[in-house]
């Protein structure tokens, strides 16, 4: 039952994220936009480049979708509303997002095109920059919850959200989440002006539809992960728990989608340099700080 409910919630959420994405890029709110675009994409030819690596080309779009949806299986929407409350849930979130890189890299290699290829390899570099910044802040979150169960992570925040308890970890995880979803200013693999859509450049028709859907779903699950790990999950007054999860998740998604509009895209070398020179030391400081606070509280 909860599987069906979660899937329905994810579908609805993805649709709203797609609407928000349209709003962030055009400044207009078109509630029917994604539906119309989706139908139009289904009616359009889905071309295959002349010399593709066929397997990579075909597998990349569904893989992106799968990578995005996997994490949602271990993230609670409300008490009891979770597909599987895995004992290693927090780690599983991290592991499932790793497949995003595989999907993007395949989409870059598959079509045998220069823009796509550069885009795909850029994302591989980006992974090197963001991956530690996903797992290290999660470590600090798990330390406070004394558990890797995502439901425990939520209940550990009943008195104070992690966003306030460990703001440094929150900021790092938020930025890393944007980098995973290659949202501006981390949109190096698609880089509309530089690479003419990069890894998406050769996808058309329904395959492009699947890619876009996968990306929107990815933004949603990442926003959900931020909500669960840092914004107290379903906790909130008056409204039912699921509504709080939905509101927080969509608010996070809206911020993730729109901040990149006001800054230039980062250089790949800078993303890497900052990720390792500042990001990782700060993540260590965060872990240390949380450890000290926990010890003192004991």
């Amino acid at each position, binding site marked *: 039952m909860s599987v069906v409910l979660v899937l329905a919630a994810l579908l609805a959420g993805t649709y709203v994220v797609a609407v928000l994405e349209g709003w962030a890029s055009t400044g207009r709110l078109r509630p029917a936009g994604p539906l119309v675009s989706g139908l139009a994409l289904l009616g359009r030819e889905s071309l295959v480049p002349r010399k593709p690596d066929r397997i990579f080309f075909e597998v990349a779009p569904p893989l992106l979708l799968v990578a995005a949806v996997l994490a949602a299986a271990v993230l609670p929407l409300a008490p009891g509303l979770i597909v599987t409350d895995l004992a290693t849930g927090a780690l599983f979130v991290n592991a499932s997002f790793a497949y995003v890189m595989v999907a993007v890299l395949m989409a870059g290699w598959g079509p045998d095109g220069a823009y796509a290829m550069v885009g795909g390899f850029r994302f591989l570099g980006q992974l090197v920059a963001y991956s530690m910044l996903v797992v290290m802040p999660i470590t600090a979150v798990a330390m406070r919850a004394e558990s890797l169960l995502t439901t425990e992570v939520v209940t550990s925040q009943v008195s104070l959200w992690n966003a306030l308890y460990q703001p440094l970890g929150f900021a790092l995880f938020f930025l890393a989440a944007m980098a995973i979803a290659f949202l501006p200013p981390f949109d190096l693999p698609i880089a509309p002006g530089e690479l003419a859509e990069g890894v998406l450049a050769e996808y058309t028709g329904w395959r492009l539809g699947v890619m876009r859907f996968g990306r929107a779903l990815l933004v949603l699950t990442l926003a959900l992960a931020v909500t669960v790990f840092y914004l107290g999950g379903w906790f909130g007054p008056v409204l039912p728990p699921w509504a709080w999860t939905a509101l927080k998740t969509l608010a996070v998604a809206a911020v993730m989608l729109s901040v990149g509009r006001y*800054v*230039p895209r980062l250089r790949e070398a800078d993303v890497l340099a900052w990720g390792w020179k500042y990001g990782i030391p700060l993540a260590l400081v965060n872990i240390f700080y949380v450890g000290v606070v926990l010890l003192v509280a004991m």
Partner: protein
Amino acid sequence: MTIPLSGSREARPFPLRRLAAWAAARDLAAFIVPGPDVARTCGIDLDAAGVRVAQTPRHAGVLVLVGELPRGLKKAAAVAYAQMPRPRAILAVGAGDVSPLPEPDVWVTASQRELAAGVEELRRLFAEGAFATEAAGFDIEEIRMETEYVCPMHPEVTSDEPGSCPKCGMDLIPRESAGGAGHEGHDDAGHGDTDHDASDPGVLVSHEGHGSNDEMDYQDMGHEGGGEDSGGHEHAERGEHEGHDEMDHGGHEDMGFMSMVEMTQGTPRSSDGLQMEWTGAPFGPLFPGLPGGLSLTFTLDGDTVANVTAPRGALGWDLDGLETAPARDFPDLLALLDPLSPTAYRLLALQALEDAANTVADERTTLERVGALERERAASHLGWFSGFGRLLGYSWLEARAGQIQLALLRAADAEEVARQETEVGKLVRRVYRTPMLARRLKGLGTLPDTAETSGPVARAAGLAKDARSGGIYRTLDFEPVVREGNDAVARLWTRLAEVEQSLKLVRKAGAVCFPQGMLTSPLRSTGSATVETPRGAATLRVKLQGDVVSATELTTPSSLHHQFIGAVAEEREVADALLGVASLDLSPWGVAR
């Protein structure tokens, strides 16, 4: 049965497809030829007409042709059209003859109102004819694939049929080419269309384009030893590659284990000492991050630009047609030369002819001209901000600068222009305050100190070079904007300051409309003039025979700056190379052969 849409998709229009057709009509995405920059200077706003602008023809359903297209661009547009997935259509906005493209589905003049009507018409066509039982094919020479056979050792040996090399006796190997140079092609997923033969980065299709991905020939680049098959993964199979002779990134065939050393053996070595696969990729003439019409081919070494080729005169646009024009029509003809700054070139022609007639415009006319020229400069710089914003991924700047540019160009009088001053001021302050922007651009596009430059590029290098320094401008308290740095960030700051300055000058001049020239008969047989166009000083010399212009000699800033493309792009990462090129603000229309 008539086919309502030139690019309808071959399929029986059953109910579900009708729904898709309805959706396609509501969700129009356009790929603009020559580019959004030209569309805006023509006062065309597709976004306001309800059409999204796509970055690649692959994601577009409508090919929008703006203005008269030169030969070179028509071919590129045809390739872009062939790359668009069906259903697709062509919308011509103030365009002339468009062959080899098929007849446009909708034809409107370059005005926003007509455009809106044209878009409505397109929507109707899509709703009715997105799917048809008979769909028209599209097949032109430029996109057809041809196989030729070449000797692996002697690239000059080519043949139409298989055989052996007369020089060394080796078997000739097949290589694909199209329209004389080659495109990637592609199969259509089972729809039986024949015309999607051009693909891949080809988007950006220099029509000699694309195959460059496949056909980079190292020997051409002076890298002996690499041989034609230096394409990375293929060395183990030297001599027996069937159809994988090219330099595509691997051809994706199966191969056994191969160490990096083996794989990169004999490939050219980059400046950083790493051996990587080299790939040729066209960036232009229809690349979203560069001015529409500018044609570059980067040889990519990983994601570093190892080499740039930037052919001059790729547009097939030249002054030839102008050289025997009646003096009366000459200013109008010169204004058509560069759609990005028509006013400056019209003024240039007028002043050259006035010089020949030995007349001087009265003060009022001169002021009106200053107003028109400065309005154009402000609009041109804003257009540059918009394009630069797109390249930078700074969407807010792209959108906002484009809007203000359109408002400036549409303003009826100096007061309306002056009203934009506050908006421009806000934009300028916001750009100055943008986090990470200066850092992003610092050190990009640096030119050698000895480089001869003009316009904002020179003024951003600390040189007070400005053709406006004398005459009427002195009475308007004009001082050239000078910044130090000689890089992309200095050019951005210079142009930001110049937009504000130009709007102040418009206010002082009190007029923005370009006066018709009052030409008197020329007294002398030659005349010359220099005008500071938005991109720098342009000089024109004309020779006259009676009332007819018999010869012209035009030097333009873009022609001058074009030579620096290599200097700002080579040995840079792709994004940095593109930003460096874009910072020069080249107008491909003003690049002489």
